[in-house]
């Protein structure tokens, strides 16, 4: 009798395992007639797995790609580069197109985890121009295609502060009425980085003494900071809970557009002492099963009209110069999204600091532990 129970239990367990037999994807012959933007239709697969940031691609573009090329784009999202890395490292997730940021690209290349791209397929690379290609993380532009770039300044409610100073002093030495109405990113590199830049150091500084200084600055600032938030910081400023919010370009821009849930008057400011610039890129993991289709998709996204449409949806800056004629001139003129040459000089890339990340984490932990709610 008990034996029966055990048997039932084991069978149940095995049944679960057995009914999980997954068929591997067989590349099917594409439809006989695909759009001319789809490459060689006979080599396309039916499905493509995209692993990207949230709301980082216009759904209409995915639908258009499916209509034109017969490939269904299945999207999965990650919330950080490290999650992306963890999933790729632990294996088993066969994504075809991934969207890592700059420093992560460098790591992926060094670890041999992404595929050199075939620019015969991705011919649209030609339209990108010099400004955003051949960056430090992919010097020969062999492994990635730029996707979007952005900065991490701060959003300001101009209804409260009509003429915001483009300086980190707004948040680090806040006016009394701003105290308690500031939010900073909950990110050890970005926030410690902001402090470092305000103090005149590099955002990739590994000198323990400088980091201590940055920490002390952050601790002193803490009582005026409402929250350290990277997820809902835009909601906070739209709702009026904060007046200044350390945040990424796209979030800030969309926070100022009433049509998408934002509020008039919220502007984005790039501090003059320096600000992070980051760039997200399209890449193909070596474990992808559909590499050709992946590259066709990357090329598709790089067509000027498509890139322009995507840029308007996402709100970030497009590195694709050929796309500029398809982007609203008002956005192109916005120095928050497309920084002036002058501002560009002050922008800094967050680079991998190697083992010093442990020092950063220690500083961040000390800082967090000492501010306590």
């Amino acid at each position, binding site marked *: 009798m*008990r*034996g029966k*129970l*055990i048997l039932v*239990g*084991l069978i149940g*367990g095995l049944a679960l395992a057995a009914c999980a037999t997954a068929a591997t994807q067989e590349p099917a012959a594409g439809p006989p007639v695909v759009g001319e933007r789809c490459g060689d239709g006979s080599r396309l697969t039916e499905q493509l797995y995209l692993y990207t940031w949230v709301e980082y691609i216009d759904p209409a573009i995915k639908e258009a790609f499916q209509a034109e090329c017969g490939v269904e784009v299945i999207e999965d999202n990650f919330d*950080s580069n*490290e*999650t992306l*890395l*963890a999933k790729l*490292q632990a294996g088993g997730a066969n994504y075809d197109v991934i969207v890592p940021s700059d420093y992560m690209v460098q*790591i*992926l290349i*060094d*670890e041999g985890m992404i595929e050199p791209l075939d620019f015969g397929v991705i011919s649209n690379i030609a339209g990108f121009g010099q400004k955003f290609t051949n960056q430090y993380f992919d010097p020969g532009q062999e492994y990635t295609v730029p996707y979007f770039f952005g900065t991490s300044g701060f959003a300001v409610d101009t209804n409260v502060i009509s003429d915001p100073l483009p300086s980190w002093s707004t948040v680090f030495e806040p006016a009394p009425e701003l105290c308690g109405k500031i939010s900073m990113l*909950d*990110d*050890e*590199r970005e926030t410690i980085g902001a402090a470092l830049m305000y103090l005149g150091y590099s955002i990739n500084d590994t000198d323990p003494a400088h980091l201590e200084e940055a920490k002390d600055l952050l601790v002193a600032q*803490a009582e005026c*900071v*409402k*929250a*350290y*938030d990277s*997820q*809902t910081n835009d909601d906070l400023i739209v*709702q*009026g*809970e904060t007046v200044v919010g350390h945040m990424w370009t796209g979030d800030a821009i969309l926070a100022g557009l009433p049509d998408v849930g934002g509020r008039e008057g919220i502007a984005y400011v790039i501090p003059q002492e320096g600000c992070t610039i980051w760039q997200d890129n399209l890449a193909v993991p070596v474990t992808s099963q559909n590499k050709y289709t992946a590259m066709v998709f990357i090329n598709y996204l790089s067509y000027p009209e498509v890139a322009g449409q995507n840029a308007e949806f996402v709100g970030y800056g497009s590195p694709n110069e050929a796309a500029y004629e398809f982007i609203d001139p008002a956005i192109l003129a916005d120095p928050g999204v497309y920084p002036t040459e002058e501002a560009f000089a002050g922008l800094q890339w967050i680079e991998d600091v*190697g*083992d010093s*990340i*442990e020092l*950063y*984490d*220690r500083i*961040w*932990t*000390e800082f*967090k*532990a000492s*501010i*306590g*709610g």
Partner: protein
Amino acid sequence: MSGRAEHRSRGPLIVVPAAIWLILFFTLPLLIVVAISFAERGRAGGVRLPLVFTLEYYQRLVDPLYLGIFWSSVRIALVVTLACVLVGYPMALFISRVAPRRRNAMLLLVIIPFWTNFLVRTYALKLLLSAEGVVNNLLLGAGLVEAPLDLLFNNFAVVLGLVYGYFPFAVLPMYASIEKFDMTLVEAATDLGANLRRAFLRIMLPLTAPGIIASVILVFVPVVGAFITPDIMGGGKVEMIGTLINRQFGVARNWPFGSAMSLALMLMVVVGVIYYLRSSQESERLI
């Protein structure tokens, strides 16, 4: 007679399915984590291959900073557990005294809010507690306060959020115990001259203790390692061991350190639980 002796020796076999499941899908994966905790950090997170043995990360844990964070997490967890048990016990009692037909309905009533999505619930809670939220409006309107209270982004918010999230974990086990408690024992005691308080402390409490103990374990233990709720409700200002561990697998790209921390946490909690179980009345029965 022989039948019973026979089944006594076969009896323990009923734990086999769970044993196999947990050994396969929990203990073995855990061994991987143990291995990682003794390895060196790889550049891209993960571990450096070929594997190199090191105690570095365990040694690093013995540091006032980390011990302090662990301790404050324990404190928060204790407060949350206390609140859950204090409110949950009377609730479980109430449900068990309700007409038998309605008991299951009430249990469902308690648990159904938790079938909505956790994030949505937490954001709704945040909304209620915000400076312009319902709670502050009520307090202002009733004239109890002059300015909106800071109900968010502090320890209070974290505790409230955790109590909210783990309340059913307290009610259900205590209900299981209280429901089978025979109230006539209390009535007999009061008939014999004891006042209610005495009857409760001397009779009801000891006999429903297993449920309370189970509640304490099911609330305290997960709460110590919680991180999403403290993150959202605390506005990144309340550092708990869970946020710390999570960061090691995230931005800090330090899996060995995160693993060492997790194992240390697990060890301390398990030791604490076993000690707690041994020293409480029904200990021999539960271990």
